[in-house]
């Protein structure tokens, strides 16, 4: 999930309108941008879609970190294609958010000055080549867990963006698994890289689903509105159940020694991530928060003359066309 701890807004609308709105959602209807919607629904969705979009954009950085060091031409091409897809996802999501009356530039400003967040996972570094495989397999894999149900979310533009994004994300997860499999089956040095990547990224991947349900204060309203479909713990369990056999298939050690199949529950038991670390990362104290935001700010500031230049040109061109008519 690329949106965590999205605060849902209390809503103070006409109770009759609210009831009719809820009835549409309960009946499985899609809400479209021009339909009436509670202010809280609109604000919560802007926050959630915006956070998701920002995550796609900031998420280019840890993967981009390895493009110039990719070990083969094919791996370089695959990684470029993947990062290009992520930027494209950002674009669809900003468009979905814009249908609710907020511009991409406004959302960008809020990312850059820290008013809006992006997923905690992108505040962790990519330190060896196997991380690129692990990011595709574990991080995109965890994102898919949440995004597949969001294809059924109540807001039409968001749902449609998700359908497209999910297709590409499942390709990303497969290429990630393929890349890390090559490492796990490779030389002892490569296997060591693969193990190191899994050990470092396992708990941050579990954090992507957000805090434990007992501490998740914003879920109930979002679930009623079908902005959120499953609880954090449900999705986390599903991810663990899917991923543990894959780690075993790769012949790697499990990154958490407490992982054990629980016959009675029909699920794997596992340890929670260190939630105090998670809250520190959310507050800005992750290993890469400062550098990631600085990189995005620099790109935006250094690019101001380009945006201004292109805009000035298109105005001149329009004026010339107008004068010629």
């Amino acid at each position, binding site marked *: 999930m690329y949106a965590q701890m999205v605060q849902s807004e209390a809503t103070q609308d006409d109770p009759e309108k609210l009831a009719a709105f809820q009835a549409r959602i309960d009946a499985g209807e899609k809400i479209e941008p021009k339909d009436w919607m509670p202010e809280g629904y609109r604000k919560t969705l802007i926050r959630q879609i915006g956070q998701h979009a920002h995550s796609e954009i900031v998420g280019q950085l840890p993967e981009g970190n390895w493009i110039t060091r990719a070990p083969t031409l094919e791996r370089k091409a695959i990684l470029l294609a993947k990062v290009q897809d992520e930027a494209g996802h950002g674009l669809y999501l900003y468009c979905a958010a814009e249908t609710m009356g907020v511009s991409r530039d406004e959302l960008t400003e809020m990312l850059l000055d820290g008013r809006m967040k992006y997923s905690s996972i992108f505040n962790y570094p990519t330190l060896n080549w196997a991380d690129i495989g692990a990011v595709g397999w574990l991080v995109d894999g965890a994102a898919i867990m949440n995004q597949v149900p969001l294809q059924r979310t109540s807001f039409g533009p968001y749902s449609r963006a998700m359908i497209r994004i999910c297709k590409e994300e499942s390709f990303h997860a497969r290429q990630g698994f393929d890349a890390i499999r090559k490492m796990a089956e490779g030389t002892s040095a490569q296997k060591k890289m693969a193990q190191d990547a899994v050990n470092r990224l396992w708990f941050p991947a579990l954090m992507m689903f957000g805090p434990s349900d007992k501490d998740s204060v914003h879920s109930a309203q979002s679930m009623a509105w079908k902005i959120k479909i499953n609880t954090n713990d449900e999705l986390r369990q599903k991810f663990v159940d899917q991923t543990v056999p894959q780690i075993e298939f790769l012949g790697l050690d499990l990154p958490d020694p407490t992982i054990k199949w629980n016959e009675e529950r029909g699920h794997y038991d596992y340890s929670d991530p260190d939630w105090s670390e998670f809250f520190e990362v959310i507050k800005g104290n992750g290993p890469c928060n400062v550098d990631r935001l600085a990189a995005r700010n620099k*790109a935006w500031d250094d*690019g101001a003359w380009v945006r201004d230049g292109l805009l000035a040109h298109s105005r001149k061109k329009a004026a010339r066309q107008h004068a010629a008519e």
Partner: protein
Amino acid sequence: MTREDAFFQFLLRMGDNTLILGHRVSEWCGHAPVLEEDIALANTALDLIGQTQMWLGLAGEVQGEGRTADDLAFLRDAWDFRNVLLCEVPNGDFGRTLMRQFLFDAWHSIQLGRLMKSSDERVAAIAEKASKEVAYHLERSADTVVGLGDGTEESHRRMQEALDYLWPYVGEMFQSDDVDAEMVKAGIAPDPASLREEYDVLVSRILGDATLIIPDSSFAHKGGRTGAMHTEHLGHLLTQMQWLQRVYPGAKW
């Protein structure tokens, strides 16, 4: 020099241009001025790397020593690279990156157009595929150069500075040597000098629309396409690009 040797050198020139420029463009990933540009730059880099796989793949085949495209990309030292210097100069600001792209794309599109008529079918097939991608690269880089040249005072100034910096690297693309003479004789590739006229017409038109002034100097740096003298920048680029292959020889990725 045998025909095979010359053909190998020619293919390295094509493949090293796309490899090194593709690498440079990929350095932008995540840092572009606007999201659409991030996507376009990644897309351009991806095309160039794809073309590298084809050119260097064929180079390895022609050389006949069992080297793959990856071997050629990752296991040669700087003096064995045959790209023009224009491709290896650092990105600079976005304006310089796009100006470099335009000056290269204009040559690339003309060159590929000629190579589509190559006597070697493999060369013609690669050129055919690449030319579709490069037509788009040229359209985009030309539009951006015009937009920024004829934009604000600042964007105009930066684009003129970019052009002044890069212009001395243009001439190398049109220098001919024994390798080229051999390629012309075999009907494989055109004489580089023969592309200049068409290039000048195209570049003058676009730079004119961009309100930029072509420097009044025909001086040209050289040494990239012969390997005699690259810039200091190439070595640094290779340390990064080749690092994993060099540290873990023989590993499969």
